């Protein structure tokens, strides 16, 4: 955890509301990105992100600073994403993992990039939750395996194996979807 986070938490726990708002501003984008990668739905990401900070707000007075604020925050976000996942089981399954973009004015290169991004999102969405979680935390959130171990309460050695498995599955799946290295190295 950065010293800035530590300072903000201390001020917030002493009753400074503005410090909490600074924490929200610092972390809202990483947490939104993390939630979006897990639930794969832009329309619910904002509400889930707000739910994370509501839980943080109510649990804040009980938080004891030990240098693991980021891990604690991601753990709350993970619980929120899992709760949302349980609720979503009753909703109809979508056929695509992202909205089809409006291609009216886009150039061919942009269309190609959007299509690649859509297929990558689809391949990530097809991973099991365990593999997707470690991939998102390591690749997108740049957490170390030790930090991920604290968030997921899983040994770092297991996480390393899962991460290798996730990348290898993505490699195979992207090749099946026509996105192997030879297809894009033209």
């Amino acid at each position: 955890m950065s010293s800035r986070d530590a300072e903000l938490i201390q001020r917030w726990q002493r009753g400074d509301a503005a410090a909490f708002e600074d924490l929200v501003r610092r972390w809202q984008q990483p947490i939104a990105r993390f939630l979006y990668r897990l639930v794969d739905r832009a329309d619910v990401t904002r509400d889930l992100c707000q739910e994370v900070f509501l839980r943080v707000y109510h649990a804040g007075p009980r938080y004891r600073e030990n240098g693991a604020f980021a891990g604690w925050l991601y753990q709350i976000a993970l619980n929120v994403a899992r709760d949302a996942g349980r609720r979503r089981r009753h909703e109809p399954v979508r056929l695509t993992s992202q909205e089809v973009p409006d291609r009216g004015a886009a150039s061919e290169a942009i269309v190609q990039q959007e299509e690649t991004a859509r297929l990558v999102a689809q391949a990530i969405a097809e991973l099991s939750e365990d593999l997707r979680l470690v991939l998102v935390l390591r690749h997108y959130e740049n957490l170390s395996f030790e930090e991920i171990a604290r968030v997921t309460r899983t040994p770092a050695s297991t996480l390393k194996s899962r991460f290798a498995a996730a990348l290898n599955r993505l490699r195979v799946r992207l090749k099946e979807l026509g996105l192997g290295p030879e297809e894009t190295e033209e």
Partner: protein
Amino acid sequence: MSCSVIRNQLPLLLYGDLLPEEKPIVEKHLAACISCQREFEALRSVQQKLGLLAAPDVQIDLPRFYRRAAERQERGRRRWRRLALATASAAAILVGCTLTLRLEAHVEGHQFILRWGGPPEVRNDAVATGQHAQPEMDRTAEKLPVAAATEDQIRLLSELIHALADSVQSVERREQQDTAQLQARLLELQQQNAQRWSALERTVDSLYQSVQKGE
């Protein structure tokens, strides 16, 4: 080391997560093995493609956030009040039963004994075995410790109910303070927003006027 073992290490090499003692072994193998080099390049390509994904831009609406926090606090307070009421009712029922039935519960010789009413009558067979029935005054004296024990239990229950009521009051006071803080912060934010809005309006007006003068 075989290629299959090395290939499991390649994602960790790509992200710089190999242990210092593992890294030279994997790199040495990679330098000599064309097939593993291809695999490594394929993984690097996956890593690059992962970077293509964009995430939605999210800004938390703080006034809305504080309103929801206050609502949640109020819900929690109502739940706590209901729980306290249910516990107090259960305790009151227990006190009532203890008073009316002269309920007595205790553990004696590996047995849980639940007794209500007065102490058991002295059985006649005790007289038959040659023991003399105790005089009436002695029996009254025996009942006294039982009555004192019941009074102790009632006093204890009464203290428990009072402690529970105090606890409910203190939790409510704390929650009310928190809600008041939230509302104050919400008001402050609304005032700040209103000030920003009027400043923006003034800026737009002055810009409009300067444009008109320029024309």
